[in-house]
């Protein structure tokens, strides 16, 4: 089976490629790049004139909700949402029901992905049993079963002694430990960022410090253990500063940021719309500025959506009672192209690095490259495509986005996984 994509601009930052070339895909792998390529008989041709071909985008932080919360999302619906959003692979967090803290659940997720997934699925295992923060999960077996990282995401392991052991225990697997950095005592159930807006709205706020004290702790633990620490959904200027400083000292720390933390501030909460509620909360303008700067200079390695589907019944509630989380798979790429790349805040090659090259590297995944021999996971972008965010048309089972009605230009045009275009 072969596919020839002609006339597209090939943007492959890992290999220093940026130019109009044709790409020949044979049997699920990149066979050749160039002009006037010889093709085997029966090769299908796609004309990507005016479009950009980049290595398949990887969202290293999503919640597929299966098993257990299939009314919010399933492997089938979540991977379709991913494909529609231009992602060829997703990493799914462990806070399912039951929790992905043992091999049986990992196997189940991977089986669902084989049967009905349309993009690659890489599970992330729990650090502690049932995310309770008291006893290590069976990480060795989970790593063997295919978990690519470990995280109690959604919860913070408050016991520093146990977290240190987790970092040590995971060393032989070469998998990062991903931290949801949130000190529960400081956050104290706060429903939004602490500041003038929380004061005006009369909502309990959580200070940026509740994230920063845990980022500080985890950096110290990473230094102690030599583990690869990855900070999930970094959201404050202070946390960014500490990651930058730790990297300069040679600590193995990486970080991701979400599109919503890059594009919105706590001002969006003024509507009391629960679709602006997530953990960590939307922060202040100075935080957003620090995040964008850190994304550009590489302090923040990647962009991940923290796609967190919630049913209407979990969201349409009093703000303080409503569930945390927003969906992101289908809005991330269009928003980033329009709000960051189009105005020149971030160049396209850097965006592709943050969405593909970096996550592949730091999780040791195939991908992030269009070199001959690589998996033919390709995202094709149309930088001029006009769009309006319409939650009713999401492939995701959930609609909880703060971006409904947003408009812009630039969107994924085709998502190719293993050499085959995906129809989401």
């Amino acid at each position, binding site marked *: 089976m072969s596919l020839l994509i002609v006339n597209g601009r090939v943007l492959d930052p890992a290999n220093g490629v940026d130019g109009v070339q044709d790409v020949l895909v044979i049997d699920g792998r990149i066979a050749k790049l160039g002009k006037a390529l010889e093709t085997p008989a029966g090769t299908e041709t796609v004309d990507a004139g005016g479009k950009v071909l980049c290595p398949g985008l990887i969202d290293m932080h999503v919640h597929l909700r299966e098993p257990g919360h299939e009314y919010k999302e399933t492997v089938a619906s979540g991977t379709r949402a991913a494909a529609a959003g231009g992602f060829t692979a997703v990493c799914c967090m462990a806070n399912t029901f039951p929790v992905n803290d043992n091999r049986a659940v990992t196997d189940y997720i991977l089986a669902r992905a084989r049967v009905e997934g349309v993009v690659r699925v890489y599970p992330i295992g729990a650090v502690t049993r049932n995310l309770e923060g008291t006893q290590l999960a069976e990480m060795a077996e989970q790593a063997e079963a295919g978990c690519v990282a470990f995280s109690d995401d959604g919860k913070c392991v408050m016991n520093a002694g146990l977290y240190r052991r987790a970092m040590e225990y995971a060393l032989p697997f070469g998998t990062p430990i991903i931290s949801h950095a949130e000190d529960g005592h400081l956050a104290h159930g706060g429903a939004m960022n602490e500041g003038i807006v929380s004061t*005006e709205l*009369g*909502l309990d706020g959580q*200070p940026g410090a509740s994230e920063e004290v845990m980022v500080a702790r985890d950096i110290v633990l990473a230094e102690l253990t030599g583990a690869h620490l990855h900070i999930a959904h970094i959201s404050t200027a202070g946390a960014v500063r500490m990651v930058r400083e730790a990297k300069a000292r040679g600590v193995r720390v990486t970080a991701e940021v979400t599109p919503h933390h890059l594009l919105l501030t706590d001002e969006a909460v003024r509507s*009391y719309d629960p679709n602006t509620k997530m953990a960590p909360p939307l922060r202040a303008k100075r935080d957003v500025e620090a995040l964008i700067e850190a994304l550009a200079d590489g302090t923040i390695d990647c962009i991940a959506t923290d796609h967190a589907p919630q049913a209407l019944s979990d969201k349409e*509630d*009093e*703000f303080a009672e409503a569930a945390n989380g927003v969906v992101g798979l289908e809005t991330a790429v269009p928003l980033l192209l329009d709000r960051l790349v189009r105005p020149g805040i971030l160049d396209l090659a850097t965006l592709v690095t943050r969405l593909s090259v970096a996550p592949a590297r730091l999780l040791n995944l195939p991908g992030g490259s269009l070199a001959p021999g690589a998996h033919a996971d390709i995202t094709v972008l149309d930088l001029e495509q006009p769009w309006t965010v319409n939650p009713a048309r999401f492939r995701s089972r959930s609609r909880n986005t703060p971006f409904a009605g947003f408009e812009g230009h630039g969107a994924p045009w085709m998502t190719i996984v293993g050499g085959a275009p995906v129809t989401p």
Partner: protein
Amino acid sequence: MGWKRKDLLSMQDIDAAEITEVLDTAESMKEIATREIKKVPTLRGKTVVNLFFESSTRTRTSFEIAGKWLSADVINFSASGSSAEKGESLLDTAKNIEAMSPDVVVVRHKAAGAPALLARHLRCSVVNAGDGAHEHPTQALLDLLTIREKKGHLEGLNVSIVGDVTHSRVARSNIHAMKKMGITVTVAGPPTLIPPACQELGVKVSHRPEEAIAHADVIMMLRLQHERMTGGFIPSIREYSRVWGLSLARLQRCRPDVLIMHPGPVNRGVELAPEVADGRYSVILDQVANGVAVRMAVLYLLTGSKAA
């Protein structure tokens, strides 16, 4: 002048002219309380639903009397606990009530933003009767009416709001309303009970009781909830009372024409010494009486003035 709003949700999004309109209307309503037969037909055929998700005696009764004196049919709906505990969402409850065609829904809820959520979804008028630590607009209006009556004006006055500002919707509504009326507002309390970035609301912040009350024309003492102690905001009620309570001795150092206000219910001996609460500077019961007039004005402006 013409009242255009469908809802009264906060003092933050209301302007000075609207505040004056409510106060002037309330003043004209006060005369009704002095009549032998306290009833006018203004809102006959209108239905007011008091939707109280949090217990309240004073505010609910005040709205009920206000509605009844204006001849509206007033229905009280009390639901304790959060909507989640009942298994019915707030919106479902509200939509059920709307199906009965009320003209005004008066909402008290422990969650900030709950009245705003209802206002977005209901066709009838929504009045915020207190939502979490967000706002309590009719309280601010009755406070302004009381101050204006006693002082003759609002502009140029100094008001100190003392106590647990962090958790106070009364403080927030008053800060917004008073700023708009040209009042200089000082908030005072231990730093743990002053909300983050409070200065950005345009108020002075003081952590010294003597300094906060010395030049005030009006001192508004806030109620201290006992759970602030277990929440780690203060070490003990005893210490709070000693440092922040308004005693008779401390009152001696205030202006001779100072007004002492309190949104109620008073914790006697905690934030206010009994002899201060009942003393000649106290206008606490005037506030309660003015509450009915202000709520009559609000109900009238939201419904009656349109029909008239």
